[in-house]
Every structure is written in C-alpha cells, then in structure tokens.
C-alpha cells in the first residue's frame, strides 16, 4: 500500500464537500417526505378504520420488504415508462423519503400506542372527538416517546442517502467513487468520506439530544 498522503486529503476535500452539500439536500428533502408520509401512515394505522389500517399495514410491510436500492431503480428507471419523469435528485429524495416513511410510521405508531388509554378516556369524557384527542392529547405525548427512535431513524436516513449514488445523484459517495476511480487513492478518499458522514451525523445527534432534553421532562 502506498503511503497515506495528507496532501491528497486537502486536494479531495473541496470535491467531496460539494457532494456533501447534495447529501444534506437529499437528506433534508427525504426527511420531510418520510416524516409527513410516516405520520399519515401511522394515523391511518391507528385510525380504527379497517380499510385505512389495512392499507397502511400492507404498504408498510411491502415497502419495508423491498431494498431501497430496488425502490430507487423503480422510481428512476420504471416510472418514466409510465410517463413520470424525475431528475435523479428528485427520484433520490422521493424514493428515500418513501422508503423511510414506513420506518417512521412504525416509530410514530409506537409512540402513539405507548400512551396510557386513560388519557384517551379523559379526553373523551371531556367531549373531545377522535381528531381533537389525537391532536391535543395523544400526539404531544407520543412525540416525546417517539423522539429517541426518530433520531435513530434520521441518522440511518443520513447514511442511506449514499444509496442515491446508484441512480447518479452526485452526492458524497458518488463523488468519492469518481475520485477513487480516477486517482486510485482509495485509502485517502474513503477515509475522508467516512469522516464526512460522521461529521454530518454529529449535528443530528446533538439536535435530537437537545430535543429530548427539552421535551423529555414532560
């Protein structure tokens, strides 16, 4: 193995930083999609309406059982045949967001189902309807319960953005492969990439930690 060259790191860093920006963008858009859809699936699942609950359950189990890579292929390569043209970036965050919405749904459902049934009875006895009970009583408490696994899932999503490289999204690992292929400096490039991902995850860990502290008390 050739000597590990620090000066190469300095050379590669700006290129990888460009990729990191795309990674963050894919992550942020994907997270929004995953969170919103996940909440919808979770609410359908606990709605008590058999059709909605069944649909949600079926969807979650189907999507969870298909590799994200294959889902990305579908969205990027198969959807155009059906008349839906997406850029690689759009396909990337929509695919990741959709795939992750199923994990998020289970995170939210766990939070919702952890709430003491007495809370729902108290809300009912005040005359609250289902939606109001969910909004005012269940979700605020479920949020707190769901926060740690939610943070965990966020970190997994951050790392899984690398899968978008397979459909040519020019994010961090896509850039790294290009640099590595053209320079053969595998050790330098992939060490740097690992550090980049780690650095991207640190703010997430800190944010979730802060939220847990803020909401953890009640």
């Amino acid at each position, binding site marked *: 193995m050739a000597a590990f060259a620090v000066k190469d790191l300095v050379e590669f860093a700006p290129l990888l930083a460009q990729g990191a920006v795309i990674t963050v963008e894919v992550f942020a858009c994907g997270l929004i999609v995953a969170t919103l859809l996940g909440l919808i699936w979770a609410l359908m699942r606990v709605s008590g309406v058999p059709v909605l609950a069944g649909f949600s359950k079926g969807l979650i189990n189907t999507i969870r059982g298909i590799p994200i890579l294959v889902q990305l292929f579908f969205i990027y390569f198969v959807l155009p045949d059906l008349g839906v043209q997406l850029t690689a970036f759009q396909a990337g965050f929509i695919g990741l967001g959709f795939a992750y919405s199923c994990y998020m749904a289970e995170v939210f459902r766990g939070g919702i189902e952890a709430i*003491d049934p*007495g*809370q729902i*009875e*108290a809300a*009912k*006895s*005040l*005359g*609250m*309807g289902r939606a*109001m009970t969910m909004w*005012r*009583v269940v979700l*605020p*408490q479920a949020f*707190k319960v769901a926060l740690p696994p939610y943070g965990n899932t966020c970190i997994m999503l951050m790392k899984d953005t690398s899968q978008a490289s397979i459909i040519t999204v020019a994010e961090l690992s896509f850039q790294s492969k290009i640099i590595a292929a053209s320079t053969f400096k595998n050790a330098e490039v992939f060490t740097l990439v690992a550090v980049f991902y780690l650095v991207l995850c640190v703010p997430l860990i800190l944010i979730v930690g802060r939220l847990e502290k803020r909401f953890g008390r*009640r």
Partner: protein
Amino acid sequence: MISIRNICKSFGSNLVLDGISLEVGQGEVVCIIGASGSGKSTLLRCVNGLETYDSGDITVEGERVDQTGKHMVAIREKVAMVFQRFNLFPHRTALENVMEGPIYVKREPRAVAERNARAVLVQVGLAGKENAYPENLSGGQQQRVAIARALAMQPHAILFDEPTSALDPELVGEVLAVMRTLADQGMTMMVVTHEMAFAREVADRVIFIDQGHIIEQGPAREVLGAPQHERTQDFLRRVTHPI
C-alpha cells in the same frame, strides 16, 4: 336526570351487568358500593359512553347514551367523569388541564376559560398551583385538579370512579372534602367508592351491587347501618373488619 333501565353488559361470556335499573334525581348523591368485579365501575362508565352496553337504556336528561349517536358530545359535556387514576394530561399544567375542555370542546374564549379555570382551582383548594405540572403534584392534589377539570365544563352531574382508591391514606381526606362540598352545593353525583364513612355521611342513597345485580339500595343509614340482605352484610363485614 340520569335514568338507567334494565341494562345488561357482558365482556365475552362474563355477564358484568345483569339488568340494572336506577334513577338518579337532580342534586342527588348516589354512592355505589360492592366488591371489585361486581360491575359498579362498568355501570358508571356506561353512563358517559366510555363503555357500550348490550341492552337496556341509559338516558341523561332525556337523551339516550349511545356511543354511535350524535348526542354523545352533548351528554359528555353534561356528565363529567373523575377517574381512579386521575388521568390528568401530563404535558399540561394544572391550569391548562382545567382549561382544555372549555377551550377546545366548548369553544370558550381563552380569557373566559382562564378566569373560570382559576376560579375552580381556588374552589378545590389549589390556588397557587396553577402552573404546576401533574408530576409535581401529590395524588390528592392531582385528583383535585381532575375534579376542577370536570367542574370547568359546568356539568349537570359528575361521575366519580373510585376517586380515592389510588391515593395514599393521608391524602384521601382532602379529596373527599372537596366532593362533600360539591354535594352540599347540590351537584348530582354518582360515586363508586370504598369509603364507607363518606357514603354514610354524604350519600342520599347507597346502592350495593353484586355480580351485576343491585342487591340492596336505600338511604345510607339503612343500607350501611342495617343491611337486610345477607350479601350486603357479608360485604360490609369484610370492608369494616378486614382482619
């Protein structure tokens, strides 16, 4: 005002209410006693629709209690409930707990709701605890917040489901005192309780339920003082002389 006619309810093959009929008049305080599993809590929960019943009728001021009916919200506004385990909203302060119903169910303006909420908290002896969260209150204080939360809805009747059973013995008195004041003010109350002293002093009528039937009912001094039925006698003996 609350009329229960011949209701039956079973959980699976277990018949918990077997043809119970009961009228509760305006301003009346009815205490329901009986062993655990006798159906008394279920009866109470049927009255504001937290539990369905299989047959019979329950009406509140003439409206039938029916979970699928559209009058359910109106009935629950009239008939408040206080639970054994308080069921306060842990993410809201005492004041917010009390304001929740008036603001989000009755759609009262916040300022009005807050003024009333502060007043009922004073009424239950919790002035100064408005901003405390439930976890920082004692069980007795929590239950009094729960009573305040019920009162804030300006109900026509309040159902108490073993309101002191989850409390440390030294905290029971403060809750019973609040309930007694309510009774004196003419609140219609149905109270499932094991507090025989409270029943004796406050109840207009005591109902003894066993295995889903009303075995005996009447003024407290009769049912508790001179029970006619063997099962009532047996129950009271066990409650008053547990050793």
